[in-house]
């Protein structure tokens, strides 16, 4: 009996594969959605639907799901310089999840950073940003979480280093760095701008990564100035600088495309940002994507910055020779996709000439892209992306340093040279 059931499943699977060949992902999406309807999924209330949407945009699942684990059951380990935080179970299981929580308990956690029992929460949970979320939105998120199937999963406690494990230190930290309060509209700005600011500063918690943190892990500003991401070997570029990822001179449509599809004609998301697009931003409603774009664009709209000019117009002979070595590697490994002129192929292989993530002060991301390669996220707008090979499998640190130094200084690009040591330091830091 079991055997025949399995055989049927296999046949079903083969049929699905055949279908998949013909119809590609758009049709696949329709199929999955209609399959869900046919399976007789109970109708959800509008509040739960809206909560599901907000939960996506806050990307709660991203942290509250262990790799390959049950959605929202927590257990993901976040390594930071203060210790290892383990995310909690958000499913409505009474013993191990938040099944006994009330709306008010959830609001207290999101808005004030306090657990149900009054315990102060560590800001690894970004309540420093979520405090800006309105009560209505918080209630909708809670309604959605309570509608999930309960998963019984107890997660291990945090493992926080001394002295950061002191509760009184956490209380001091909160006095210094935590400002409680729902987002307040700026009446001088448009409705879209305010909606964008609400999402970027609050639920989207963009500041969690795009900021420089001080010794106590507190974000230094609300201006999305960029910084090394805590617990990750990636640099989150500044969203308020032309030199990094500011979008003041971009068309709104292009910003929307980057947020929701992960690629545009001139840029590709990679690393943690690709993950955010896949897990969260691709599901933005058109109005919300537009609102975020309006707000992000405004951060650098008045900046008349130019890309850094030529710092050394004449290269010394030895420098030229050094870069030529990288140029040979470029020719062998990179040119077929990124082109002799470094212009790439729009929407497929990003241009390297004039690419700000190539010439940013911090070479971390460009080194990591060469080392690890990767695919842009698969999204409804870019379901079958082209990828970049992981060159650490075939190149030595010295060779990666040469080729990165070359692309940082070819086709009018000018940026610091990269050493093998920089390459070595850019490795690791993955889960």
């Amino acid at each position, binding site marked *: 009996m079991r055997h025949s059931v399995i055989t049927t499943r296999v046949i079903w699977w083969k049929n699905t594969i055949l279908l998949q060949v013909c119809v590609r992902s758009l049709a696949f999406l329709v199929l999955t959605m209609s399959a869900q309807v046919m399976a007789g999924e109970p109708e959800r209330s509008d509040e739960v639907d809206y909560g599901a949407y907000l939960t996506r945009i806050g990307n709660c699942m991203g942290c509250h799901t262990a790799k*390959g684990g049950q959605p929202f059951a927590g257990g993901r380990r976040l390594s930071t310089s203060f210790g290892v935080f383990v995310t909690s179970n958000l499913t409505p299981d009474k013993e191990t999840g938040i099944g006994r929580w009330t709306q008010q308990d959830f609001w207290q956690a999101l808005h004030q950073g306090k657990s149900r029992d009054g315990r102060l929460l560590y800001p690894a949970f970004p309540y420093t940003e979520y405090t800006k979320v309105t009560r209505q939105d918080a209630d909708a998120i809670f309604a959605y979480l309570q509608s999930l199937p309960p998963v019984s999963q107890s997660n291990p406690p945090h493992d926080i280093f001394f002295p950061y494990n002191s509760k009184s230190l956490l209380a001091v930290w909160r006095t210094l760095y935590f400002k409680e309060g729902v987002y307040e509209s700026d009446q001088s700005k448009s409705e879209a701008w305010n909606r964008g600011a609400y999402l970027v500063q609050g639920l989207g918690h963009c500041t969690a990564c795009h900021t420089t943190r001080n010794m106590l892990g507190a974000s230094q500003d609300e201006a999305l100035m960029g910084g090394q991401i805590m617990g990750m070997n990636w640099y989150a570029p500044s969203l308020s600088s032309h030199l990094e990822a500011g979008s003041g001179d971009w068309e709104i449509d292009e910003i929307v495309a980057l947020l929701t599809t992960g690629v545009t004609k001139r840029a590709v998301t990679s690393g943690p940002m690709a993950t955010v697009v896949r897990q969260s931003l691709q599901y933005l409603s058109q109005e919300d994507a537009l609102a975020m774009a309006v707000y992000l664009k405004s951060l650098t709209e008045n900046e008349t910055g130019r890309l850094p000019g030529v710092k050394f117009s004449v290269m010394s002979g030895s420098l030229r020779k050094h870069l030529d070595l990288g140029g040979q590697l470029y020719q062998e490994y990179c040119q077929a996709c990124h082109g002799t002129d470094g212009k790439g*192929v729009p929407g497929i292989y990003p241009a390297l000439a004039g690419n700000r993530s190539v010439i940013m002060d911090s070479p971390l991301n460009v080194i990591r892209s060469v080392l690890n390669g990767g695919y842009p996220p698969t*999204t409804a707008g870019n379901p079958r992306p082209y990828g970049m090979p992981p060159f650490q499998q075939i190149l030595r640190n010295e060779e990666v340093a040469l080729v990165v130094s070359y692309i940082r200084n070819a086709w009018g690009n000018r940026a610091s040279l990269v050493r093998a040591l920089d390459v070595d330091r850019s490795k690791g830091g993955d889960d």
Partner: protein
Amino acid sequence: MMRFILLLFFCITGVANVNGSTPAEVPDTMDDRVKACTICHSAEDKVGRDAYYPRIAGKPQGYLFNQMRNFRDGRRYYPPMAILLENMSDEYLLEIAQYFSSLQLPYPDPEQIQMQPEEIKLAEHLIYSGYPERDIPACSACHGDVLMGVEPAIPGLIGLPRAYITAQLGGWRNGGIMRGGKPDCMSEIAKQLTESEVNAVAKWLANQSVSGKPSSFDVLSSELVDRCSQTILENGGAE
């Protein structure tokens, strides 16, 4: 519903945008989409700087699909593959699995490793009879009479180099291939094998020439299907 329509609209315009910007010089093919894979997984097995890259061409698509999902979701631990696949949907991984599975590339000649008659006897016993009293099924019971695998998810054992087979069996014995969840059935079997049995099987398999085709799913006994269900079915252990 409104949201669904919007999403659909978004899809269509998004796809149109990306396609619209594709210049003629990048072919719209899987060949070009999997360049990130073929730098290591080329037509033949390949030894890289610090890793060994098995040939994936022609392996059953269900097997490839399951392995890619295992890497992506952390069940099979190898960070370079996990990073590469991190943001890929199941639908796209299935298409990639299908692409590599459909490649018909010539296999390399078998190795010519010297074996003693008793070693050959040991290997053939393990492969065709197994040791039921030690809970070791015959290899052929799952990998097919001609050891070319069973569709859709069990890989063939012929056409692989000895080093790869030894490494895989070693990995299973040490529990180092799959992580967490339920124990993997190959792991349980490999742990029963002695070192000399692993060596004999690896040598014998590497000495065979490729012939025949993967068997169909019906040849499997229900007992073995049950035992290995998490490895050989479409859910790849993610129940």
